């Protein structure tokens, strides 16, 4: 991400969530600019055709062009003050071609007929240069042109139309709620993104898309100076593929849990959550340190989403399986030979995990991916068995498939698109069951809520996860709060220990707003839905240390 106009916003209260800061692309602009319409569709089609024709005339056998306008508004606050407001716009064209059986890519911010034609020629020249080093020609799964179409995230309130003052007021009210309830410090942030993407390809597709995402979040810190201790509690919001309506805090979208806990479905009450967070951060100060050992874990969707992301989402990315990410993120234990047996038990019979680019309110949902493939839903794990991967057009032939899964994405117009994770979600159980019902059946367990520390090896076998809140369960009841909890497991053993699922009424999504992959690194946003789920006999360690 550092190759762009990168404004480092780390140290503004998000450092715990992001390595290396928050990516901001493009130039800072006025708030009004974020609401101005971009280039009209007819002009974009005319410019796209220039790219397609220029590349074809230079010898490209396939071309796609993405004319992208990427808008961001980020608001950062701490306690009573605004730390930063960033409004940014990035506009340009990325052109990808196949020439001599090899990919070539070039991008330009010179969005003129001459600039685009030159960029297309560069892309072809790069493809031809790289072809000399290539051993296998690109085989692209066919994709019928979809003609001139459009798609828009079905938002109710465009977040960019909400005055900045309202956003600041809400965040400062959130901070005040935390401080009034015992927080020593609080930071709160609001991230809003709008991708206006136009895609055209030599297959005969002209796709105009308008995609919106939002993420409110905070961290509350409680400090006991006399004891020399501090504890934090992060927000239980989820980043969403929604407009500002996510901030409405509708009572109908709240799921009451045990011990006064509240789960948020598709509407978030940030002030209520900050109030609870401050109280819970203080409770963490005196929570009992965990005794290491085996426990049955009851995992909340706001926690389990990250475990799904790391232990199912990433290992089933086909480019990792094939070795394209070997030097960075790593490869995968979910190898093709295991998949070919059609009986590799990734998890217990209860485990049904779907990949999905269509689920409402989620981050990964679009009309079409960044190589013109319509959004789809497909099974990754069915009744515990590994049945498929995440594949894009130039990978499908390796699986013997005929069509792409439609999960190709680039994080900006000047990034080359590649395989990125769709929403990957655990289906809810079919039997009626709430969290409280589930806890009643546990003799010795821990109920874990929220995203904590996370780490997994480069083939996704061994992982360790922490959380935000830990409650000890004894003989079917919550008996108190625990501290210093992390669980370690082997991916396959963990998913095979999946013993019980709550039903659809408990189902919620978790999201990762800045998921990193590739070199140079690109971000993407992805959701993971699940119900609260029980895993039996998982190894819990005590992470308390004295220094």
């Amino acid at each position: 991400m550092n190759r762009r106009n990168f404004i480092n916003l780390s140290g503004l209260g998000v450092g715990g969530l992001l390595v290396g800061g928050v990516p901001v692309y493009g130039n800072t602009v006025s708030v009004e600019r974020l609401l101005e319409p971009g280039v009209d569709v007819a002009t974009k089609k005319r410019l796209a055709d220039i790219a397609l024709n220029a590349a074809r005339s230079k010898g490209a056998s396939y071309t796609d062009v993405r004319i992208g306008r990427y808008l961001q508004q980020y608001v950062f606050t701490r306690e009573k003050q605004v730390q930063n407001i960033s409004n940014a716009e990035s506009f340009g064209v990325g052109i990808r071609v196949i020439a001599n059986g090899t990919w070539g890519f070039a991008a330009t911010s010179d969005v003129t007929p001459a600039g685009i034609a030159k960029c297309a020629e560069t892309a072809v020249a790069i493809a031809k240069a790289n072809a000399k080093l290539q051993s296998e020609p690109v085989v692209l799964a066919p994709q019928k042109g979809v003609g001139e179409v459009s798609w828009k995230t079905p938002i109710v309130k465009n977040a960019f139309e909400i005055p900045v003052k309202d956003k600041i007021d809400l965040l400062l009210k959130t901070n005040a709620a935390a401080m009034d309830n015992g927080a020593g410090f609080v930071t709160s942030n609001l991230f809003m993104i709008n991708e206006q993407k136009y895609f055209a390809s030599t297959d005969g597709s002209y796709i105009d898309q308008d995609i919106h995402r939002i993420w409110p979040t905070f961290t509350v810190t409680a400090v006991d100076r006399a004891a020399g201790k501090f504890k934090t509690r992060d927000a239980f919001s989820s980043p969403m593929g929604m407009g500002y309506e996510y901030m409405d805090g509708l009572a109908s979208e709240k799921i009451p849990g045990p011990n006064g806990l509240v789960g948020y479905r598709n509407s978030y009450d940030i002030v209520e959550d900050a109030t609870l967070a401050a109280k819970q951060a203080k409770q963490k100060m005196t929570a009992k340190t965990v005794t290491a050992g085996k426990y049955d874990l009851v995992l909340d969707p706001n926690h389990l989403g990250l475990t799904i992301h790391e232990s199912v989402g990433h290992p089933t990315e086909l480019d990792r399986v094939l070795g394209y990410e070997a030097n960075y993120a790593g490869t995968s234990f979910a190898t093709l030979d295991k998949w070919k047996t059609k009986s590799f038990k990734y998890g217990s019979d209860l485990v049904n995990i779907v990949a999905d680019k269509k689920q409402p309110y989620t981050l990964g949902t679009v009309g079409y991916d960044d190589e013109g493939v319509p959004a789809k839903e497909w099974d990754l794990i069915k009744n515990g068995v590994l049945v498929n991967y995440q594949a894009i057009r130039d990978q499908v032939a390796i699986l013997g498939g005929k069509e792409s899964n439609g999960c190709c994405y680039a994080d900006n117009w000047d990034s080359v698109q590649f395989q990125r994770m769709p929403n990957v979600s655990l289906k809810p159980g079919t039997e009626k069951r709430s969290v409280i019902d589930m806890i009643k059946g546990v003799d010795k367990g821990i109920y874990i809520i929220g995203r904590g520390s996370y780490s997994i090896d480069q083939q996704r076998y061994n992982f360790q996860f922490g959380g935000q809140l830990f409650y000890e369960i004894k003989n079917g009841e919550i008996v108190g709060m625990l501290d210093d909890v992390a669980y370690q497991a082997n991916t396959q053993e963990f998913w095979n220990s999946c013993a019980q699922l709550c039903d659809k009424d408990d189902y919620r999504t978790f999201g990762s707003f800045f998921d990193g992959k590739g070199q140079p690194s690109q971000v993407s946003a992805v959701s993971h839905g699940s119900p609260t789920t029980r895993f039996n006999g998982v190894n819990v360690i005590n992470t308390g240390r004295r220094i």
Partner: protein
Amino acid sequence: MAILTEAEAKRIIDKVLSFSKADDLSVSLSGGRRGNIRYARNAVSTSGESENISLGVTASFGKKTGTATINELDDASLEKTVRRAEEVARLAPENPEYMPLLGPQTYLKTDPYAKSTANMDPDYRAKATFDSVDPCRKKNLTAAGYMEDSTRFNAIGNTKGLSAYNRETSVEFSVTVRTADGTGSGYATRDVTDVSKLNTREATEIAMQKAMASTNARALEPGKYTVILEPAALVANVDASLLNAMVRSMDARSADEGRSFLSKKGGGTRLGEKLFDERVTIYSDPTNLDVPNGAFSGDGRPQEKVTWIEKGVVKNMPYSRYWAEKKGVHATPGGGNFIMEGGTQSLADMIRSTEKGILVTRFWYIRPVDPQTLLYTGLTRDGTFYIENGQIKFPVKNFRFNESPIIMLNNLEALGKPVRMGGNLVPPMKIRDFTFTSLSDAV
């Protein structure tokens, strides 16, 4: 041309300043060229080159500030950007932590620029990749690697007379070599200012040796072990790392606020306390010839030679200007690089003097577990070996660790000769009682 000379940059900055109607105006002009080449399965997967230039203007009226950026440098665009920054500033809420602009400063002379790197082109990158892939192909090994080069400048100026310019180059290279059957994996990484000092074949050959030597790894019980950590296990180019995490967690404000490992029980900080083994000395120095760095920080403060930890004692902590003024102390900026003093032993010497231990090539996926104690978790990766009686005996399966650099630097057995890693100088270390908590099947 994205690399402006000092005179060209100053001319543009002065022009911007001349448009100011604000109480104060500061300007930051930066740009550069980045090239990269990525390969996997012994073939190039992507490569590219991009140029960028960006001008940032921050205007202030009293304690209200606003920023605007642009990448066009004609006079009309410059003036428009100043007006926009001023407009944003007028509408902004007051920043209670606003600090007046710095006046002219005196900077150390540093030289983090190499012409050889500035001259790199696609052919150079392709040749460097060939030098890495070719020996792997010949040995039926599979290479995946990445090289990114950067040539950039940044210049700052303000209406109080501050003016500074820096240009620098850097190249980062890493390669992972795997055996054809996927049972062995090795890694090497290098970073240089001057690309003529980078030999991708030499680095790849080390990764190849590790890949071949790491097949058929045996499982050892997790527990406390004496470990020899190579510099790549202490500071990483691509991910969080143990030593970097500690050095970057020394901020004075967090410590004063009671939310840092340097916060003291009962209030205050642990400045002046001996927290580490007495052989631990860590400092920053932008003039060091092995890891040269820019002479000024983002807000214009001069980068200094400053000692953070001396003989195990916390000597200095970085301050923001606001916090330093509030506390009435010198506003030491966080260093651009860090240098940890070491010894004279080579890695081979350290292995020879080890009765029983584990050699760790690198760690991976390091994440904080407890910010209070700086406890981190992560895993070994790409070459982990058992040492007995001064010799590497056999490869071992990867471990997950849970360890704090604070505890680690108290359990120090030996330090080797420092090498450059991620722009810093880091010695290999021998540590006793390093905590491995579980095994991983990953290769």
